[in-house]
């Protein structure tokens, strides 16, 4: 669903809050000057005036209309600029674009979520959506991995999730420090710790390409069917509405046919990771 029909016009949005999530990741809260809504998993194009634009999936709840949050890792030209913002800046948003998480198809099933690094951003939006409809899912299990304990984002959220009936959350780190008492290992190793009903589960995976790749392979090993593995594919869309060609994935366009795909849909394409 697109909020404005002129594909080149942005909705001006004031940056009202910046939260430091980790040394390299911040959450930016914006107030759009016009009505703006999205479904979980859909993405927006976020522009810094005269500087650049890039696609991000909101990390906030789609049920909150007046504000929108994006959680951004400092990874390049535009994100570096944004990490120097103090608040009060006017940003531009276009969209939302793409096909988000098909939450309705998860009803009456166990939802296992595998997140890595900044990939927890879209997942947080998904979690807010699942919480709103919590009685419709058998179980929701979040497995999240970060490189170190300091790199973990949304730290308070994990405790909050565990207080919700049928919701569980687990964390791992690749490299521990003296403060860490939890699981050490790649995020996929958490899958060996959790209990799930293979016959009635879907898995949502979001993280860096390498984590998505090995996460998917591990899930296949465990017996998950490709049609039950949902991946959030990352591409550098320029237009967001199926024209610029930057996000071709096989014969699909991530901006229109994704960014959420089942592994079944893309497993035969070249260069997916």
């Amino acid at each position, binding site marked *: 669903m697109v909020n404005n029909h002129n*594909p*080149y016009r942005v909705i001006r949005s004031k940056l009202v809050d910046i939260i430091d999530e980790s040394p390299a990741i911040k959450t930016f809260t914006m107030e759009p000057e016009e009505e703006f809504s999205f479904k979980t998993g859909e993405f927006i194009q976020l522009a810094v005036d*005269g500087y650049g634009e890039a696609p991000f999936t909101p990390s906030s709840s789609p049920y909150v209309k007046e504000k929108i949050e994006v959680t951004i890792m400092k990874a390049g030209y535009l994100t570096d600029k944004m990490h120097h913002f103090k608040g009060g800046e006017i940003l531009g948003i276009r969209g939302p674009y793409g096909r988000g998480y098909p939450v309705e198809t998860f009803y009456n099933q166990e939802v296992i979520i595998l997140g890595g690094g900044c990939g927890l951003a879209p997942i947080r939006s998904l979690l807010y959506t699942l919480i709103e409809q919590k009685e419709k899912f058998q179980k929701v299990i979040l497995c999240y991995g970060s490189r170190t304990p300091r790199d973990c984002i949304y730290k308070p959220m994990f405790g909050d999730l565990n207080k919700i009936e049928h919701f569980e959350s687990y964390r791992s780190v690749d490299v521990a420090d003296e403060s860490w008492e939890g699981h050490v290992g790649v995020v996929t190793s958490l899958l060996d710790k959790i209990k799930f009903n293979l016959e009635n589960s879907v898995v949502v995976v979001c993280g*860096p390409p390498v984590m998505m790749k090995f996460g998917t392979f591990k899930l296949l090993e465990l017996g998950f069917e490709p049609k039950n593995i949902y991946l959030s594919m990352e591409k*550098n869309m320029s*237009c967001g509405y199926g*024209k*610029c060609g930057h996000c*071709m994935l096989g014969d699909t366009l991530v901006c229109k046919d994704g960014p959420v795909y089942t592994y079944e849909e893309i497993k035969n394409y070249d260069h997916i990771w």
Partner: protein
Amino acid sequence: MRSQFLLTRKHWDEAIFTFFNEFNVYAPIQKWDFIDYMLIDEKNLNAVIYNHPKPATPLKSFFLPVKQNVNLKQEKRDKIIMGVPACDLKGLELLDEIYLDKDLPDTVYQYQREHTILIGTDCHQILEHCHCTTYGTDPFPNSMQDLTLNSIDDMIILQSFTEKGEKLLSKINGYNKTTEPPQDILDTINQSRKSIVDELNQKNKLLPDYKETGNLVKHSNGTVWKKFAENCVSCGACATSCPTCTCFLFIDRPGFEKVRNIDACQFPGFERVAAGEDPLHLLINRFKNRYMCKYVLKTAKYNSIACTGCGRCIEACIGKINKNELFLELKEKEKV
């Protein structure tokens, strides 16, 4: 809507002269050692070349210019583009399919398309790398044109195909819908078409057709690709000169303005994402990607073909990569 009109070149030039009040008129003109679409005025009207194959730049440049600020107001004057060969018109089918899709049409492209009259033309000769018939495109217009124009001796034969074309014909002084070209002229056109088709078919008889090309690209191994990619310097000339390559990149300007720049999957970084991950990092992957896109992926996604056989990519390549030679080698490998 198939009104026909026969008039002398002088009469047609006079008509074009009157079009200048209302339209910007473009047509192929010889400039230095190439022929390209140029803006026509009273001074160069006599130099317009009809029935010539592909001008140097593809027709897409009118609708997707190399650089365009998409937030600025669009040019108010409508355009007439004359002398458009069939390969360029065919290429526009894919552009329309992508840019005018019902869900999210591109408004700037749409405006340009709606405010342009296309006058297609038969090719009365073929150039070295022309191979349109190999991919099922005739060397004479049969889609997308508002009018067709044939210049035979000193006569101009116009035929309208759309309301826009009919409207333009009606502006010509002395136009009468019942004016039919004599049979001998129509016979000449048909004979010319047949002989050009025969010439193209004969010249390109060894080339695999569009479907076979797709299969060859999809199932081929790496050695041929490696050999040809060695001469690629990622300049993107093949994509820029291609009538169906449509990729672009937005560059932001102050005031949240966007400048659309033509882009190419041949450029390093085309698919690079945050933190530097890039599935097309290797040149050989980028090189093959363009062929995959044209002959396999776009074929699966769209109804229109993504290569019209114009051969501009062969002429534009500074590494002298000839895609037809590549396909012939792939075909040879297939046999082994």
